[in-house]
């Protein structure tokens, strides 16, 4: 190779060969992969556009102004519920796609061979991917909090000429805010785990993303199917079974925690009453199953392709 430099001129000091795989380094690497994907920014841009249109239509109408003037608490809860629905949907789509892509891409493109061959552990890599996705989710959440808070204060000031309607909200409004934040975090964690599990099972981007994205529409629609079957067969088991579907249970989590005022879930909910404890158990079991599937399959299966 005539143009190649002499190896002695470029080969480094012995200290280089003392490098070790690092979890923090793996997280940095995964964050770079997320950041450099055009799809990440396309989804985020769509997130901003849809949010701006939806929130704008919610807060700019005359009805909103009247509600704010006469019932600031009601205005705030409306805003909060709309925001949570919007955030859960958009962050869910974002994290399901990112999670499934990030994990399955390594198998689909074969880069998993290069990564593992340099000593990074399989579970270490999966953990780094979870961490990078969690950081991404938290950054998006932080951005949404900042922007939606700014929009809220701006709208209140525009309608009322002061921030008093917000600053004088009762304590329960802030409690519900924290509950919504908790539900958003749980929803994000479940999406990351679901996306990763689908990717690890299928080991292809198409299967991973497809299965992850189809899951929630399928089990939300499953509630409708089970209701129909219940009506046709008069068997109550079909209605009872809906309390074990993940999507409807996640949709019911915020309403089951917010006892001070009635909250309607935006999407399907179980067809039988369930309390918060039931929701936590069902969500916890699904999360554990997704995590276990991802970890065990990553750990045990050979990398053949």
């Amino acid at each position, binding site marked *: 190779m005539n143009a190649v430099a002499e*190896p002695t001129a*470029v080969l*480094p000091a012995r200290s280089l*060969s003392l490098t070790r795989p690092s979890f923090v*380094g793996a997280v940095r690497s995964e964050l770079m*992969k997320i950041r450099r994907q*055009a799809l990440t920014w396309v989804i985020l841009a769509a997130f901003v556009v849809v949010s701006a249109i939806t929130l704008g239509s919610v807060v700019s109408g005359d009805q909103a102004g009247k509600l704010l003037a006469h019932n600031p608490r009601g205005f705030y809860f409306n805003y909060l519920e709309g925001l949570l629905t919007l955030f859960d949907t958009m962050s869910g789509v974002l994290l399901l796609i990112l999670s499934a892509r990030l994990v399955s891409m390594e198998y689909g493109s074969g880069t998993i061979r290069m990564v593992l061959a340099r*000593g990074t*552990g399989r579970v270490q890599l999966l953990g780094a991917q979870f961490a990078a996705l969690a950081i991404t989710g938290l950054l998006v959440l932080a951005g949404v909090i900042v922007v939606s808070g700014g929009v809220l204060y701006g709208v209140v000031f525009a309608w009322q000429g002061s921030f008093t309607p917000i600053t004088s909200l009762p304590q329960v409004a802030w409690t519900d805010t924290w509950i919504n934040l908790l539900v958003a975090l749980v929803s994000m964690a479940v999406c990351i785990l679901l996306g990763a599990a689908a990717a690890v099972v299928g080991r292809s981007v198409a299967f991973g993303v497809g299965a992850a994205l189809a899951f929630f529409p399928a089990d939300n629609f499953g509630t409708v199917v089970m209701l129909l079957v219940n009506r046709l067969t008069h068997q109550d088991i079909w209605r009872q079974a809906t309390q074990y579907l993940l999507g409807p249970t996640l949709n019911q989590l915020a309403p089951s925690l917010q006892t001070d005022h009635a909250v309607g879930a935006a999407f399907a909910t179980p067809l039988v009453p369930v309390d918060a404890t039931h929701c936590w158990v069902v969500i916890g079991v699904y999360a554990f199953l997704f995590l276990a599937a991802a970890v065990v399959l990553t750990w045990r299966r050979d*990398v053949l392709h």
Partner: protein
Amino acid sequence: MSAAVLTTHGLSKTYGTRQAVRGLDLEVRRGEVFGFLGPNGAGKTTTIRMALGLIHPTAGRVEILGSDVQADRARVLPRVGALVETPALYGYLSGRNNLKAFAHMLGGLPDGRLEAVLELVRLAGRQKDKVKSYSMGMKQRLAVAIALLNDPELLILDEPANGLDPAGIVEMRDLLRQLAAAGKTVFISSHVLAEVQQVCDRVAIINLGQLVRLAGVAELVAGRGEFVLRLPNPALALELVRRQDWGSSARIESGALVARSPSGRGRELLHFLAQAGIWADGIDERQHSLEEIFLSLTTPIGAAS
């Protein structure tokens, strides 16, 4: 420190009922360029994958630099640079960012190191371009750069000439020679037998998952007391030589007489023919090509013709 850099002990891998690798015992010594040869499906890539911890052996073990790969992969594998089959890279990242992604995983490398390996493989000028725009040869070179990132003691290269044009193959050969000159141990699996013959010190040939020959290249290709003589009338010389006790294996190949010598030395053969009035235009000690050796060891009996 042991002279063995890579050792396999009774290494076996079974897929269902098919034994891909059967009780393979190999030893690669420090500083040598070791060729690993076999027909398609012989078990080469499976062996390499086991050496790199990508698949779990059914039996046996692999030791690299004195440590068991399965038990101590995080300590051992960073000291190994590997290229397994086709170069697997992140197409949406630039060449430089591909290197960065792997450098992060290795816990970070000095700033100048990326430039050094990019220079070494002649990609410095294209480092900012996305890898999806690279030719196969460029991808292969970038994969080699990734393998060299942290100055590994052992390089495992699976078909490094795959997809390279003749000029690329020559470049790869020169790079391997430079690495060997710099004291690296190189384990190379290749179908390009002429290249292996030129760069390797020793070769192992496997067939149907079993080791069939392990020897130095010089030993393998050395002639077995045969000489090639260029003569004006080889048929006459052949008839004469075949009448001798030592000449029964004489034959004509490509218009030249191939024959043993009465004493094992070429001048005795020349003297014998000269006494009969046959003067040779030239004589060479006959050497076998690695390809001939390879085919004789791996072609099923009866299929050679």
